[in-house]
Each structure stands twice: as C-alpha cells, then as structure tokens.
C-alpha cells in the first residue's frame, strides 16, 4: 500500500484475513445455502457462523435478530419503510438535520407521500436538544431514526437514552450505526433500540454487504419479498462470500475494540493537536469530548476544501471535505451548516479518519505537510493578507452575489 489513507469513514481496506476467509466461498464452497445437498449445506453453516459473529459484535440477544442486507442504505430504507408500513395509523418520523443522505433523502421523499418529518436541530458542537425531542414524541410518531455517530465529525448522539424515550412513547427506534459499529462496544440486548444499520465496508469487510439488526418481537414488514432467505425478511440469494467476510471482520473488530479506543484515539489526538498547533485560524468541528476515536474534522478558515484535498492528494494523503465542490452541490456540508459554521470555514473543513492500520509515521507526515498546504492556498485567498486574515475579512472581500 502506498500513500497515507486517512479516509476510513468513507471506506476501509478489507483485512487480508477477511479476504482469506472469503476466498473458498467463491470457488470450492459455491453452493446456494438454500439447496438440500451438501454443496449448499456447508455454505449455510458458514452463514450461520457469520451471523453469530455479528451477533457477538452487536451484543444482540439472538442470532435471528441479524438480517444480512446489501449495504447500510438498504438497512436504513428497510427499517424506516417497515416501521411506517407496520403502523399505518402513525404518520410522523423524527430524525435529525445531520443524518446521512441515506436517511435524509428517504425522509424528503416520504414527505411528498404525506408523512410529517421532524428534523431535530443541533447546536454549535453538533449536539441535540433532548427537550425538543421529548416534546415531539407522541402517539403519531411511527419511528425515530437517529445516527449513533456522525460520519463527518464523529460526534455521538445519546441513542440509548433516546431509544428509551421513544419506547415509552410507543414509537419504534432505529439508529444508523454504520460509523459506530466496530469502534464502540455495543450491547443491544440491554437497550430499547429496535433496529440498527451496519455497513460491512466501514469495518474492514467488503463493500456490498450490510446488516439490519431487528430486535425480536418488533413488528416488521420486509422491503424485498420473494424467497425465504433471512427467514423471509430479506428475500434474495445471500451474498455468501461477503457475509462470511463480514463475520470474520466482526470477530476481528471485537478483538481490536480496545486498540481502536486507545491507540487509534491517541494517534488521532496527536494528529489533531499537531495540526492545530501549527495552523492559525483552524478549529475542530463537532464535539471533541464525545466522538468516535478515529475521527477528526478540522475547519481551515478562508480556503476551500477541494483545493486542500487536491494538494493533499499530491502528497499521497487521502482525506475528505465538507466543501460544496467535493460533492458537486451548491452548498457546503449540511452537517457544517446545521452547526452554524460560517461559509468561509465550512467550505474549508477536512475530515481525517484513521483506522487500526494507521501509523505514527503517517501521522507525523501529515502534521508536517498540512501547514504548508494551508499556507500555500491562503496566499491565493482574497481573505488573507500576509501572515493572517485581512482586517475584517468579510469587509475586505465582499464579492457580488455573495
């Protein structure tokens, strides 16, 4: 592997041990787990094992609570559409302004069908107001969907507590936990969380496999209907190789849980402190006191994120940005806007997300390179003047149609 990959919230490298576990299921063990013969039976057993490995990682009470899907987005759509279908008398959804598009785009579409969607606001550090939440919960609430950890800032939401409140109001609770699973110890059997989404490729399993955790007894209406796979809750022939891979990755994530929360967190903290110490007018977004151990989101004022990424890439460093340009949209990241980060900083946010494969040498290299890049771009910026921002930057440069 060449280059420094600090974009693990986007996707992760499949662990070689995961690949090794998967390989026999392409060729020798190619059977359909639904078949009666031994070709199929052995594959069926491998899926059973994977299910138990995922059960262990999630702290689920029963292995039958694990439904394999094709991705996190499918799990999210299945969960929310099921909750609406199963409770047709309830017409409201509660979610947050900072969810992943997998939730927000679906909710926007459901609004056209007459559902009422409440979007919980966040404060400057990306935290929710639980009093606002309590007021919105009611007998019209079909489902609450709140992410466990934000993909851009890593900030946690108090989903365990929020699930208790939803449960008391008779509403279902779903959480998109794709960033948290594998980095946060989970014990779902002791929570009131009804549904939870997992994405394999965020925890060193391949792309194209996910999980929907569905608590036993929660009313469910499948998205895909057809064969009896996944006990009729997700029809379609199983992605056997990837399921086996996800099982192995779940097992490895259990083993690495402490490491992620100590060593990876230490490296992340070092990276962040190193950059902030050397780069003026930069700050951490989100809530640094309560977030994923691997994520640091830093706003560099008065410059634009895509330009930063292109220069980082030239140095072989991979990260991502909340700028409008990196998405081809006209607005910077909805997460940054929801936190009230000004445009001149929101466009210059860069997310560094580490993994257990990140090294001290890589962190040192990034700390050495970033200040140069930022200084180089600020030299081009109309908001910048010599060694610091222009006096009263908003007045120094106020372009037409801004």
């Amino acid at each position, binding site marked *: 592997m060449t280059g420094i990959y600090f974009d693990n919230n986007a996707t992760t490298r499949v662990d070689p041990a995961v690949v090794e576990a998967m390989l026999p299921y392409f060729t020798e063990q190619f059977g359909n787990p639904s078949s009666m013969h031994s070709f199929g039976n052995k594959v069926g057993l491998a899926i059973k094992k994977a299910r138990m490995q995922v059960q262990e990682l999630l702290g689920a009470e029963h292995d039958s609570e694990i439904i394999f899907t094709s991705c996190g987005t499918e799990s999210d759509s299945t969960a929310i559409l099921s909750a609406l279908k199963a409770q047709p008398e309830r017409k409201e959804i509660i979610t947050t302004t900072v969810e992943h598009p997998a939730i927000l785009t679906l909710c926007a579409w459901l609004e056209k069908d007459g559902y009422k969607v409440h979007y919980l606001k966040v404060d400057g550090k990306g935290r929710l107001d639980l009093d606002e939440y309590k007021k919105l919960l009611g007998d019209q609430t079909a489902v609450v969907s709140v992410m466990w950890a934000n993909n851009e800032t890593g900030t946690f939401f108090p989903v365990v507590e929020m699930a208790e409140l939803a449960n008391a109001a008779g509403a279902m609770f779903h959480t998109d936990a794709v960033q948290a699973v594998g980095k946060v110890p989970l014990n779902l059997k002791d929570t009131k969380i009804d549904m939870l989404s997992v994405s394999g490729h965020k925890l060193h399993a391949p792309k194209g496999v996910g999980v929907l955790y569905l608590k036993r007894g929660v009313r469910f209406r499948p998205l895909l209907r057809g064969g009896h796979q996944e006990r009729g809750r997700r029809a379609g022939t199983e992605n056997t190789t990837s399921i086996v891979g996800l099982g192995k990755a779940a097992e490895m994530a259990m083993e690495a849980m402490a490491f992620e929360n100590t060593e990876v967190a230490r490296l992340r903290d070092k990276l962040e402190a190193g950059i902030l110490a050397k780069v003026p007018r930069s700050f951490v977004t989100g809530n640094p006191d309560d977030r994923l151990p691997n994520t640091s989101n830093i706003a560099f004022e008065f410059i634009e994120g*895509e330009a930063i990424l292109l220069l980082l890439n030239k140095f072989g460093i991979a990260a991502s940005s909340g700028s409008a*340009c990196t998405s081809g949209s*006209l*607005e910077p990241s909805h997460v940054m806007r929801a936190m009230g980060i000004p445009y001149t900083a929101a466009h210059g946010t860069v997310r560094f997300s580490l993994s257990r494969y990140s090294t001290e040498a890589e962190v040192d290299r990034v700390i050495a390179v970033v200040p140069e890049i930022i200084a180089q771009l600020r*030299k081009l910026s*109309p908001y910048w003047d010599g060694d610091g921002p222009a006096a009263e930057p908003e007045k120094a440069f106020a372009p*037409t*149609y*801004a």
Partner: protein
Amino acid sequence: MWDYSDKVKEHFFQPRNAGVLEGANGVGDVGSISCGDALRLMLKVEPETDIILDAHFQTFGCGSAIASSSALTEMIKGKTLDEALKVSNQDIADYLDGLPPEKMHCSVMGREALQAAVANYRGEEWSDDHEEGALVCKCFAIDAVMIEDTIRANDLSSVQDVTNYTKAGGGCSSCHEGIEEILVKVMAERGESFKPGTPSKEEAKPAGMTNLQRIRKIEAVLESVRPQLKRDGGDIELLDVDGKTIYVSMTGACAGCQMEALTLQGIQQKLMEELKEFIKIVPTKAGALSRASCHV
C-alpha cells in the same frame, strides 16, 4: 475525484499571476461564498492605450476555480480592454482543455470577474444577472434555475418540452424525476398540475420550407461554424436529415473531443434559431447510418 485535464491540474498546482497586484487600477470581486467560489481579479491598465499591462487574481475556491482564474489572467494580459472582453467563458474552458460540467460555472465566474474589473476601471457600475441553481442535467450542465425560468417563460408542461427548450434531460435521462419535480412546482404557480404523458407543445412548423430549402439552410449554418472548428483542427459534415433529427459527423480534432457535446449544443442552438423549429443534432460516424438502416 473530478476528471480534470492536465492543463487544469497544471494551472492549479502552479497558478500564474496569483496574489495582490500593486498599482491595480481595475478590480472585480465576484462569486458566491455560500457556493464556495469567489474571485478577485486585479488589472493594471495603461490609460493611453487601454492595454492590460498586468493581471493578478486571488481566489477562494476549488481546484478548477483557481485554474480558471489563472488561465484568465494569462489570456487577457497584453490585450486591450475591448479585446479582453471578447474572451468568453467557453474560451476559458477551452484554454484549460475543458472543464467537467459541474465546474463550468468556474469559467463563468472568471468571465464575470473580467466584466466587473473592466467596469470598475471605467468607473461604471457592474451588476450581474447571474443566478445559479443546483445542477439538474449533468449531461448538458443545465441547472434548476435555468429550467424553472424556461418553464415559466414558455408555459412548458412536459419533460419533452423542457428537453426541447433547454436540452436538459436529453442525454442519459437520469434527471427526468428531477425535471418532473420542477414542473410540478412551477406549474402549481400557474394553477396547473403536472400530468405525466402530456404531449409536448406542438412543435413549430418549418416555415413553409421545402426539404431542399431546409437542407440548404442547415448546410449554411454548418458552413458558418466551420471556420471556428477548423481553427481547432476539426470539422463537421452533414450526413442526413430525418425529420427533426440531423445527423452529423465530427471529424479531425473534434471527433471524441471532450467539448464535443458543448460544441454540438451550440450548433444545435444555431440551427434551431435559423430553422425556427426544434431539431436534434446527433453525432454519428460516416457510414454508420447506412448500416443502422438495415436493422430498421
């Protein structure tokens, strides 16, 4: 990651004429901080001759915004103001060997900064008529505001109409859902509801032209753009006319050029204006037509 040309990358990594220009006597500040792209263009103009002696820029923006700014300063140095004002946004994009459709607005911004800086030098007020919406059609780089305005101005009520008037939706068709949403919204303003399957507006009849006159007219339009194409080492040939569809062959440097779609879009627009009817221009290889017809 964006598919930037080597020229864009080069101008981004080694921008020309960046930073404050001492003694500038024409300055244009344009762009939108909410969109994340803004530019200050500084000109030093010789009053006696109106020649741009030097041009610098400062840009808050992405790779292609910085590259477009850099390209612009190179293109206008040494020109008189009137010559410089002839530089179009397409010229800036061409100079950079093309920009991705999502990034064409960077070249528009460059062109506007130039207008603003010249106006500033001449002591005039410059106001932009620029309004940009979310990109809807990626094939032809058409944004929501353009589609909305066109629907309003022409009372359009079908996706086909929108394609006929703006070209949006005429390519891969992935944006048809988005176009329908805009139709729903704009038609509601005039008290109508959008109905899928509504036939498109009756297309304007060819103004009493015979087939021969029509084809001659088409040839004349192609003749008028030919010098421009030849300048870039390319050419265009009329292959066939089948009702509203005009088949052409792009040859030389035009064949497979990144800007082919935009070039054809411009030619199509010219043809529509001349013929006063909706036509579609379809690029195809010489010889392909006779083969295709065997399968009809």
